[in-house]
């Protein structure tokens, strides 16, 4: 198996295709007994299979895939978030593939039900961050934001985490939850509203302390999330994952040219360490064009500074 390319391959966000189903080929799941249904809500377990990836690893992969998809799609009206993981498997890139999570040698069964045993086994497998890990998975996603109507779209993805290095390689396809033409219309509407927006003065907190986002400022929030998706994709690893907690300042909001030029600072919340990481992001967005984004995150005293740039 050839090593993963350093630049992640472009995803296929399923835009022009009418079908609601995923590509079956990447997920024929014909692997050497590593296939299993993940213990997601309502899904049956596969008893006695020690190679079931820990559910946390599958969720990590799903998040990385969606951040990447959101960034590549470059559509602030088409942002998606994870609903639920359906199934997945994980293996190293070697030939033959090995597990990229450690499995306990002794498993106590204790007379629990079959599903109970499954749950106990899979939850005891923990992520081995020293190995490169290729995760193939299926999951559902829903629309981000107050317009979310509960409709789920199915996604399939292959995500390669490289030994806690940034920029997991992502190949992802999602069924559309919105007609392409409608998404383009909504992006255009957002663009027009953004052009008319005057940036709020000084350091602003969006949302405010009580979770309130002024509906007129929503385009700013959605664009901030779009830019943050790039940062969050780059930084997601087997064990680290992020949410955008707050837009803490707007440094520049330029709308006089064609594109929206937005320089801002967000506070990202990293869940496993619970840390808040301020990141300064500068993006340039025009509907239908790839997003241009640069960023620089303030690091904790223990880690190095992190920055990145895409598009130019």
């Amino acid at each position, binding site marked *: 198996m050839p090593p993963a390319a350093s630049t992640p391959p472009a995803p296929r966000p399923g835009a022009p295709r009418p079908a609601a189903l995923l590509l079956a080929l990447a997920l024929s799941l014909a692997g050497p007994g590593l296939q299993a249904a993940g213990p997601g*809500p309502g899904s049956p377990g596969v008893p006695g299979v020690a190679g079931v990836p820990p*559910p*946390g690893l599958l969720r990590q992969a799903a998040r990385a895939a969606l951040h990447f998809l959101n960034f590549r799609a470059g559509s602030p009206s088409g942002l998606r*978030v994870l609903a*639920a993981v359906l199934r997945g498997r994980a293996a190293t890139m070697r030939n033959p593939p090995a597990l990229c999570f450690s499995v306990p040698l002794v498993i106590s069964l204790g007379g*629990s039900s079959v599903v*109970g045993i499954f749950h106990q086994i899979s*939850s*005891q497998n*923990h992520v081995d961050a020293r190995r490169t890990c290729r995760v193939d998975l299926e999951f559902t996603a829903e629309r*981000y934001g107050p317009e979310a109507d509960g409709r789920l779209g199915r996604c399939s993805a292959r995500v390669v985490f490289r030994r806690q290095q940034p920029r997991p390689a992502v190949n992802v396809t999602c069924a559309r939850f919105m007609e392409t033409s409608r998404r383009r219309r909504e992006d255009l509407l957002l663009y027009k509203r953004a052009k008319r927006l005057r940036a709020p003065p000084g350091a602003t*907190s969006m*949302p405010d*302390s*009580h*979770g*309130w986002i002024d509906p007129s400022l929503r385009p700013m929030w959605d664009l901030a999330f779009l830019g943050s998706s790039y940062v969050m994709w780059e930084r997601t690893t087997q064990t680290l994952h992020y*949410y955008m*907690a*707050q837009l803490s300042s707007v440094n520049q909001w330029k709308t006089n040219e064609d594109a929206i030029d937005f320089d801002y600072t967000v*506070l990202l*919340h990293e*869940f*496993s*360490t*619970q*840390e*808040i990481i301020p990141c300064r992001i500068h993006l340039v967005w025009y509907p239908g064009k790839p997003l241009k984004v640069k960023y620089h995150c303030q690091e*904790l*005293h*223990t880690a190095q500074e992190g920055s990145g740039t895409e598009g130019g």
Partner: protein
Amino acid sequence: MIQISEKYAGVATQHFLGMTYETRPMYYLKISQPSDNPKKIIWMDCGIHAREWIAPAFCQWFVKEILQNYKDNPRIGRFLRNLDFYVLPVLNIDGYIYTWTTDRLWRKSRSSHNNGTCFGTDLNRNFNVSWCSIGASKNCQDITFCGSGPVSEPETKAVSSFVESKKESIVCFLTMHSYGQLILTPYGYTKNKSSNHEELIQVGQKAANALKKKHGTNYRVGSSADILYATSGSSRDWARDIGIPFSYTFELRDNGTYGFILPAAQIQATCEETMEAVLSVLDDVYERYWNSDSAGKVTPATVVLGLLVSLVSIF
């Protein structure tokens, strides 16, 4: 809290627990119907992490629900025959105030370290259970700083001395957090399971099901080490290890969309569904100890938002 103990005098009384680092008094509310029989205790604390605002909101909602309904609602009424509720609405008062005045995303306490160059201990890493062994930091600049030693913080000391002194009577220890939509059982400091793990999972899962029935919100149930991350020095693990059988951490809404800064518009729904989960746990705990056959019909609680508003204004 004074207003509540006045309005519900005889049932709700305010008690001093200790002082915070910034010398603010910590009070818990004891809800107890006077009777001759010995009571078991349900402990609930909220707001050990300053930024998790939905948690103190829930503690207030819980108190309101119990006090407004214990007379007319048989399900709640029977709890008070044999149980006392001890509720600490804001454990980390200094941090909580700091999130209102200065930094909305602050988590720790406001104790001073390293000659005043660094502030705050993660109170939920400061309890005396496998202290600072994993998932915590000895560096004050970190957000999971475990303190200068186990129970080094006055807030932790206040809670643990009190809970320790009542541990023979406490059957249930609930600590409310956000976010993540999880019901967590011990342990965080090890992947080993408590002796009653199966039962805790069963009870937790039933609670999650009851929660979901209310507004469709999905919660996951599992041990902290399995479904969240490794932690040491947590109040829940400590409570379990001193012998309190039912010890849970609740991580309330949401799933990351707003995170800690949950919109005010979601407070009521979150409190309603969480109430169903807690009542479900209480049902199971009650069944276990008093094997009640009179499964009282659950009447829908009437919502009096005015009381909630006045509760909020107390803090």
